C-alpha cells in the first residue's frame, strides 16, 4: 500500500497510537483555500475523504486554511489544494510564501498531500503564467510549470492514466505544461489524454506521501482505490497501520468505468 521509506519515517515520528476520546482513529485534514481554489468540483475530493473515513469509524476533521491562515507545521495528517483561476492563483501564490511556508516541511515529514490542477502547479518550484510572470510555488515537488503562451492549445479533455494501484479516470483542463525534475517521480502513465506536458506520456507527480495531478472531475469520488491509498498513508504514518475495511463501491466503480469510456 505504501513505500517502505514513508512507513519507517512514520513510525519514527509518531511512535504511539494517539486516539480520540472514543478510541476512534483521528485524522486532521487541512483544506487549502477552499474559497479560492475550488473551480472544478474540488469539493468532491473532500466529501469523498470525509465519507470514506466516516464509514470506517475514522474521525476526520477538516480545517479550512484560507489566505492569511498560518499553516502549523505539525497540525495536520493530510493536506489538500484544488484548482483556481489565474487571478486567484496569484493571490494564493503570494499567500503560500507568506503564511504556508510549513507546507514543504510537512511533506518532508510524511504528511499526505494532494494538489490538483492549480494546486498541483503551485506546489512545484514555480509557475510561469500566460503573461510571462513567474509565481513562486510551495516547493513540495521538484517540478515547474510553463504556460507556452496565448497561441498554445489548452490541454482539455477526458484523461485516464495507470498508476501502481490501477487506473485513474478524470478530466484535465490546463494551459500550463508541467515538467518534472529528478526529485519527483511521475504519478501515472497516460493511457488517454495529455497529462503533465502533453508529450512525456506521464501524468502527475509524487514525492514521499505527496501527490499532484491534473486529473479533476473531481478525482477521488470515482477513483476510490486512490482515495483509500491517501487515507491509508495518513493512518500508517500516524498509527503504523493502514488497514481499511472494504466499502460498497459499486457506484464508484461504475462511475470510474463510465469516465474511462467518456468521449
Amino acid at each position, binding site marked *: 500500500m505504501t513505500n517502505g521509506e514513508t512507513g519507517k519515517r512514520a513510525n519514527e515520528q509518531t511512535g504511539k497510537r494517539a486516539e480520540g476520546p472514543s478510541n476512534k482513529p483521528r485524522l486532521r485534514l487541512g483544506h487549502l483555500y477552499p474559497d479560492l481554489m475550488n473551480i472544478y468540483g474540488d469539493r468532491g475530493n473532500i466529501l469523498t475523504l470525509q465519507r470514506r473515513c466516516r464509514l470506517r469509524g475514522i474521525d476526520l476533521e477538516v480545517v479550512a486554511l484560507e489566505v492569511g491562515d498560518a499553516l502549523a507545521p505539525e497540525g495536520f495528517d493530510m493536506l489538500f489544494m484544488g484548482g483556481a483561476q489565474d487571478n486567484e492563483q496569484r493571490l494564493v501564490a503570494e499567500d503560500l510564501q507568506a503564511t504556508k511556508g510549513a507546507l514543504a516541511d510537512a511533506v518532508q515529514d510524511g504528511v499526505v498531500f494532494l494538489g490538483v490542477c492549480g494546486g498541483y502547479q503551485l506546489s512545484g518550484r514555480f509557475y510561469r503564467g500566460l503573461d510571462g510572470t513567474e509565481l513562486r510555488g510551495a516547493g513540495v515537488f521538484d517540478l515547474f510549470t510553463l504556460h507556452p503562451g496565448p497561441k498554445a492549445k489548452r490541454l482539455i479533455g477526458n484523461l485516464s492514466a495507470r498508476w501502481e494501484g490501477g487506473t485513474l479516470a478524470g478530466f484535465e483542463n490546463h494551459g500550463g505544461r508541467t515538467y518534472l525534475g529528478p526529485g519527483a517521480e511521475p504519478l501515472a502513465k497516460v493511457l488517454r489524454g495529455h497529462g503533465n506536458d502533453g508529450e512525456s506520456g506521464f501524468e502527475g507527480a509524487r514525492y514521499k506521501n505527496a501527490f499532484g495531478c491534473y486529473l479533476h472531475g473531481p478525482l477521488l469520488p470515482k477513483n476510490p482505490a486512490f482515495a483509500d491509498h491517501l487515507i491509508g498513508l495518513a493512518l500508517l504514518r500516524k498509527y503504523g497501520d493502514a488497514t481499511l475495511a472494504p466499502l460498497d463501491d459499486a457506484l464508484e466503480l461504475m*462511475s470510474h468505468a*463510465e*469516465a474511462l469510456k467518456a468521449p
Partner: protein
Amino acid sequence: MPDPRTLASVWAAKGTAYASRALRRGGGTAASGLVGLWLQPGLIADLAAQLGEGCVVITGTNGKTTTSLLVSNAAREAGLDVLANGSGSNLMRGVASTLALAAGSDGKLIGPQRRIGVFEMDEAAMTLALPELRPRAVVFTNLFRDQLDRYGEVDAVASRWRDALARAPKGLHLVLNADDPSVALLGEGWEHVTYFGVEGKALGHDAPDHASDALTCICGARFEYAVAFYGHVGHWRCPACKRKRPKPHVTARRVSLRDGRSASFELGVGEEKATIQLGLGGLYNVYNALAAVAATTALDLPLAATERALGSATAAFGRQEAFEVDGRRVELFLGKNPAGLNQVLSTLLLDPSRKTALFVLNDGIADGRDVSWIWDADFEVAAGKLDRVFTSGTRAAEMALRLKYAEWTERTMEVDPDIERALNRAIALTPEGTCLTIVPTYTAMLTVRELLAKRAGKQEFWRL
C-alpha cells in the same frame, strides 16, 4: 438593390433549411446559418441594419432564453413584430439563419418597419455579435462558471465582455444585474445603464453559497454582503475601494415564491409601481422578469405592455415546462451549471409534494464534456426530501455518485444510462396524480423533451 452576395446567401440559407427539414435532420438552423455566413460574411450586419426598431442582445450565464422570451412577448404586446432566434441557436450561425429566413426572395428583410430583433447570444459569441448586430441595448443577466472546458474560466469571460464593450459605440444602452458584481461593474463609466435588482432581505442568506464565482473585487479585496440571494448574487460592497451594488432603477420587493410554479412581487420602475403575478417559478425567474422589464424600459416600450407579458408568461423551451403523461404531471427543469442547478433545487423544494425526480446528465459538446460541475452544486440541501430518484444520461453513474456523496438515501435510487428506459421507468413509478420532476442537462433536455412530446402530444420544437 440589396447586396448581391446577401441575396445569394439568403437563398442558399433558405434552401439549406428547407433541405434539412425535408431530410428530417432537425430545424436546420445551424446548417443554414453556416451556409449563409460562408457565402456572405456580412449577412448579419446587412440584414440586422434593416430592422426598423433595431435590436437587443441578451447574454449571460443563466436566464438568457427566458429573458429573451419575456422581452419578445413584451414587444409583441407593444405592437411590434419580433424577430428572435429561438431553439437555443444562440451562436452567430443561429442569428444568421434567423435573419436569412426572415428575408424575402429579393434578399431583403420582409416587413422591416415595425420589426425588432431580440437575440439571445451565447456568452462567447456575444463579443462577435456586437459589431455585426449593432444593438440598441445589451442585457447581461449574470455570470457564473459554466462549461469551463468550452468557455474558459469566469474571469476570462468577464474580460472578453469588457473588451467587446470597449469597442462598442458609447450610445449603447447597457442593462445590468446590479446584484451580480461581475455584471454590475461592467457599467462603470458608461453613460446609458439601467440596473435591475431585488430589494429586501427576506429571501437571502448572510453569505454567498458555494457556487459563487465573483468573491473578489477588481481591486483584489473580498466583497462583503449585506444579503446574498444565490451564488454571489446579492447586496455586495467592497470594503477596500468602496465600490458597491449600484442602486437599481428596476426593482422587485415583497417577492413571494409560492410553490415554485409561479411568483408574485411588487415591481418598481423608478417611481412607478405595479404588482406582478409571474407565471414562472423561482427567484431566478424573478431576476429574468426584472431583466426583461429593464430591457423594455431601455427600449422605450410601454410598461403596461411588459406587465401584460409577465402576467401571461409561460415557460421557455425546456425550462419549467410541464407535460401531462398518463395522469402524472411531468415537469422539466433545465439544469446545466452549479448556480442554475442550485436555483432549480431550491425551487423544487418549495413544494414538498414533489417526491419523484429524474436527473439526466449528459457530457455532449453542448453540455460540456467535463461533468465536474455537478460536484459544485448543492445537492446536499435536498438530501432526504424525496422518495424516488432516477439518474440517466451518458454520465448516469457519476450523477448517482454525486447524490450518494450528498447523502441522498432515497428508498428508490435507480441508474440507467438509456434515457428512454429511465424516463418510462420513472413515469411508471411516479404515483398517479403526483408529479415527476426531471432535471436534464442541455442535450439531455432535447432528448427528454422529444420523448415526452411523443407521449404527451406536444409539437417538435422547430415547429412551435
